[in-house]
């Protein structure tokens, strides 16, 4: 249950902070933002509860799915954002989407659409859906780097920001 609470909090903050405050409703003040954060937490709990009552698949499969997606989308974007100054927005967006689409389709194919084929003789390079996130991550890295080097450099302020976060 401790985990559920933590997960619901990141969902609600990304809705109230990233979607509302930073993108669609930049004019709201802090009290309103806090109010929306609480509302979205409440909505997220209800949705999560519905998932709990009508589960889409086995618990273990679903959790493996989450890790694979995190490895193939968020990790490379954060890592490259800190350790490379050259990576630009085109590269990062293309990388995340490539990782997401590749990993999600592989898992959906073997776990939900054709679960009877889910055995080592059909897997790509002998990698099970639980481990495919690693390959997805490599695809994300390659896509991001190739697309970045083929398009324009990021603005100078970004380089300054990266320099700043590298110092404690």
């Amino acid at each position, binding site marked *: *249950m*401790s*985990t*559920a*609470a*933590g*997960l*619901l*909090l*990141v*969902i609600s903050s*990304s*809705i109230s*902070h*990233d*979607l509302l405050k*930073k*993108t669609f409703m930049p004019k709201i003040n802090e009290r309103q933002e*806090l109010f929306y954060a*609480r509302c979205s*937490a*409440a909505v*997220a*709990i209800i949705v*999560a*509860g519905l*998932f*709990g*009552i009508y*589960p889409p698949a086995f*618990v*273990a499969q679903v*959790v493996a*799915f*989450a*890790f694979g*997606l*995190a490895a193939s*989308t*968020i*990790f490379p*974007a*954060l890592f490259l954002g*800190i350790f490379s100054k050259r990576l630009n*927005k085109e590269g*990062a*967006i293309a990388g*995340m989407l490539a990782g997401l689409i590749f990993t*999600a389709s592989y898992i959906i194919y073997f776990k939900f659409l054709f679960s009877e084929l889910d055995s080592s003789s059909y897997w790509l390079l002998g*990698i099970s859906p*639980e*481990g495919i996130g*690693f390959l997805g*991550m490599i695809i994300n890295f390659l896509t991001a780097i190739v697309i970045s080097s083929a398009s324009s450099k990021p603005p100078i302020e970004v380089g300054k*920001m*990266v320099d*700043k*976060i*590298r110092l*404690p």
Partner: protein
Amino acid sequence: MSSQLLTYIFVGLSFATYIAIAIWSRASSTNEFYVAGKGVNPIANGMATAADWMSAASFISMAGLISFLGKDGAVYLMGWTGGYVLLALLLAPYLRKFGQYTVPDFIGTRYYSKTARLVAVLCLIFISFTYVAGQMRGVGIVFSRFLEVEIQVGVIIGMIVVFFYAVLGGMKGITYTQVAQYCVMIFAYLVPAIFISILITGNPIPQLGFGDTLVNSSTYLLDKLDQLSIDLGFSAYTENTKSNIDIFCITAALMFGTAGLPHVIVRFFTVPRVSDARKSAGYALVFIAFLYTTAPAVAAFSRVNFIESIQEKSYLDSPDWFKNWENIGLIAWQDKNDDGLINYSAGKPFEGSRPIFSDEFGSQGQREIKNLPTLDNSNEVYIDRDIMVLANPEIAKLPAWLWL
């Protein structure tokens, strides 16, 4: 006092504590709601991270999973700990220095693009909802089993409690309830683990008992377990069955996934300084390691217990948990050779993937099943894939309220 009443009292008291903490620490600004005002002590944050980490999937289920998988179980042990090294070395300090509230915040700013922020939000919601769906189900199953209510009711009870401390307290409330939860959980896990270790190997430290000899014998526990597994037609407990490339990729996906999970990363936004983010990841891993080095030991102990308590025992003398889970339908026993004894070995016990129970009872009182028995092996026991996960506390004699 009955154990049912004890369970109610225990559950009631813990919930009252959690809700009290949530009210005491309720958030009054977005800074407090999102990142607990960036004032959490690194040790407390380490505990909260550990509690956050020990979800239904990795807490009790861990030992059950490993005792089924043997050496292959190492993918979860390494995969769910090694990511903290990546977090401490590659991400946490820099993201803390960046100093915003969410993961998409960093991506949106670093890549100077609203689109990048939205893609990150999309990924985050996708990841978190798949993860939380599993969690709520787990919470529901636990409540239903131990408060004896329907799974749906269990899920709703869970929703109400989470509502209190997430909506009222935000990150601040969650952090301090998690610190309390960590203390309860680790105590509740280690005490019985120490007892089983003493019982089976005479060594009070499970991590050492794991590699020790059995009581009154000069055979090592793991050698005995290898022998038992081979005798029953399984592969040796200490050998891999998956291919190396698959083990490699699963471990890597879990490690890098850990480092990319938004709800874990955000925990490192709550400490006061950059150096605290590094320290905090270290403390978190220490607290997690208490459990993750104990779990494989408990797995081995309970595997021995499991085999020895049912193999060639008469059904009438089988342990309570065997009959309880048979009633729920996750265990089935078909007396193929009519000897009244439970014969457990590798192989499918009957045709079809799940047992189809009739309403009849067999000569020993077991639930009859309609599936045709398989003839190529002598295994008579059907064990649902989830059983070791769910029944492990009973097999290993761990208290049931651990999951809460």
